[in-house]
């Protein structure tokens, strides 16, 4: 089972990071893991179902703010993270009810518009969200105050989520989503309840995006409205496109490459979005399969 082996090696490597890496590298790897989870949640809709969501930032922020508020109210770390993700899923259920009724183009517009609505609420509702200052001083308890311990907890939760999402992609739900991507009408006629299936995927994606955000809040110990902005929603889009939307591991690879590249580019220029715009342009024009897609094509040609 090469796939199980890959998973095992990945798990061990990720969990060994605190032993070999300094605080900066740990922080970077954890950020990569969080973006990877966000990108995987995005790709549940994009690569699998063919729906381009520009609003994952809303659920990411929903999870982050809910977890932050619960932590500040004195709830322990793990329940706060779980409830934060559940809150994001509930938010996704409300927004999803509007979005899943529509075809692809409307879907993209609506997710962006509702995402910015969440941003507007976060920005304006100062009493609860702290407005443009955000929330600061988020505690994560005595035990997890040590960065290594928090790293291990967050990494373990991300890895578990990746395993769940992987199982999901080959489950009957995953197959139904792919059928919808290929031909929604045909899927409907062969007995797939299209809207309900998309709705389930939407809420699931919202949950895992929320988990990614809920893990961010205790890491940074602050949350700012930028988590809800569309530029945040654009990050999983770019990571997925870079890695490749048609393979399960694409968003994972993409998240690592994206943040790694960003880390290097920001040392030379503040205009990193311009660079990623050009990268995205190149990807859309010539490498729609992403890095992983290109690698697989190359490997097949050799074999």
């Amino acid at each position, binding site marked *: 089972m090469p796939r199980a082996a890959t998973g095992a090696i990945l798990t061990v490597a990720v969990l060994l990071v605190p032993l070999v890496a300094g605080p900066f590298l740990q922080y970077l790897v954890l950020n990569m893991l969080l973006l990877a989870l966000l990108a995987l949640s995005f790709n549940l809709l994009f690569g699998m179902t063919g*729906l381009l969501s520009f609003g994952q930032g809303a659920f990411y922020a929903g999870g982050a703010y809910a977890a932050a508020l619960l932590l500040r109210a004195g709830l322990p770390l793990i329940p706060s993270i779980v409830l934060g993700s559940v809150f994001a899923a509930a938010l996704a259920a409300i927004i999803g009810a509007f979005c899943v009724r529509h075809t692809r*183009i*409307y879907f993209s517009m609506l997710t962006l*518009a509702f995402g910015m609505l969440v941003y507007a*609420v976060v920005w304006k509702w100062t009493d609860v969200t702290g407005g443009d200052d955000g929330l600061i001083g988020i505690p994560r308890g005595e035990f997890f105050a040590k960065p290594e311990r928090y790293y291990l907890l967050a990494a373990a939760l991300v890895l578990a989520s990746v395993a769940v999402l992987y199982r999901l992609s080959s489950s009957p739900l995953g197959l139904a989503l792919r059928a919808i991507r290929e031909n929604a009408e045909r899927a409907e006629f062969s007995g797939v309840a299209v809207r309900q299936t998309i709705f389930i995927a939407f809420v699931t994606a919202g949950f895992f995006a929320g988990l990614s955000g809920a893990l961010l809040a205790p890491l940074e110990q602050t949350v700012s409205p930028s988590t809800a902005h569309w530029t945040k929603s654009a990050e999983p*889009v770019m990571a997925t496109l870079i890695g490749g939307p048609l393979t399960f591991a694409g968003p994972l690879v993409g998240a690592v490459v994206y943040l790694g590249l960003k880390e290097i580019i920001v040392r030379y220029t503040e205009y990193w*979005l*311009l660079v*990623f715009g050009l990268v*995205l342009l190149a990807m859309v024009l010539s490498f729609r399969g992403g890095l992983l897609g290109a690698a697989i094509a190359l490997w097949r040609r050799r074999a």
Partner: protein
Amino acid sequence: MLFQGLVGLSEAMYLWLVAAGLSLIFGVLRVLNFAHGSLYMLGAYFAWIAFRISGSFWVALLLGPLLVCAVGWAMEFGFLRRVYGAPEPFQLLLTFAFVLIFDDLVKLVFGPVYQSPPTPAALSGAVMIGRSVLPTYHLFILAVGGLVGLGLWLFLEKTGVGLIIRATAADREMACALGVRSSRLFTWVFVLGAWLAGLGGALSMPVRAISPGMGEFIIIEAFVVVVLGGLGSLRGAFLGAVLIGLLHAYGLVFMPVFELALGYVAMAAVLIVRPWGLFGVREA
């Protein structure tokens, strides 16, 4: 009250110009141009440059949108037409890449500083409306927005080219079978849409602060407008823009805290009752 309404209507005209271009392009090309707000931004910046060089507002108003047309032409001819065969999300992603590129290029060239050019002398006066003072420029914007609407309507309903555009929007395959050269038509419709966005940007230059983020804001509002009015319908875009403009104007007076959310609430309400928008065609 009337004063608020007139302010709201004049604000709606920028939105109408952007939404009109967005809707027109979608109607014919079936591509949603995420970068339409960026074209609006470029219209403002290009007009600003033209103003700095020529010193004349009218030259700026003419040249700014024309330069945006050139950018639009390059976008369609150089890039967009390569992905017409790709799945829809990739066409969207291509235009999205341009949002990132244009926004950062503008920051790179002009800096993140807010620019505020002066109102032209002829339009810098004010008119008394009841007991309030309305800048003449607002009335000028209203007139331009109305004239563009009228012009578009005449162009689409009364000319041969307009007929071809409407036919292609209604049934692309049939239009092509009857001899419409779709590739050339697509380019020109995209350029026209870019001109509309550029005009909106150029018009906004003297009254709204020019900044690299101005495109992001208006494209999301324009999405709300076309969802309200129905994607591909110009009438819907006009009424949607007017509705949003009035909602914002009166919202600021009556419930300032929720002003930002009002447009979205209206959009959600319309989506529940008529998911295809007020003037849109029901999705098959």
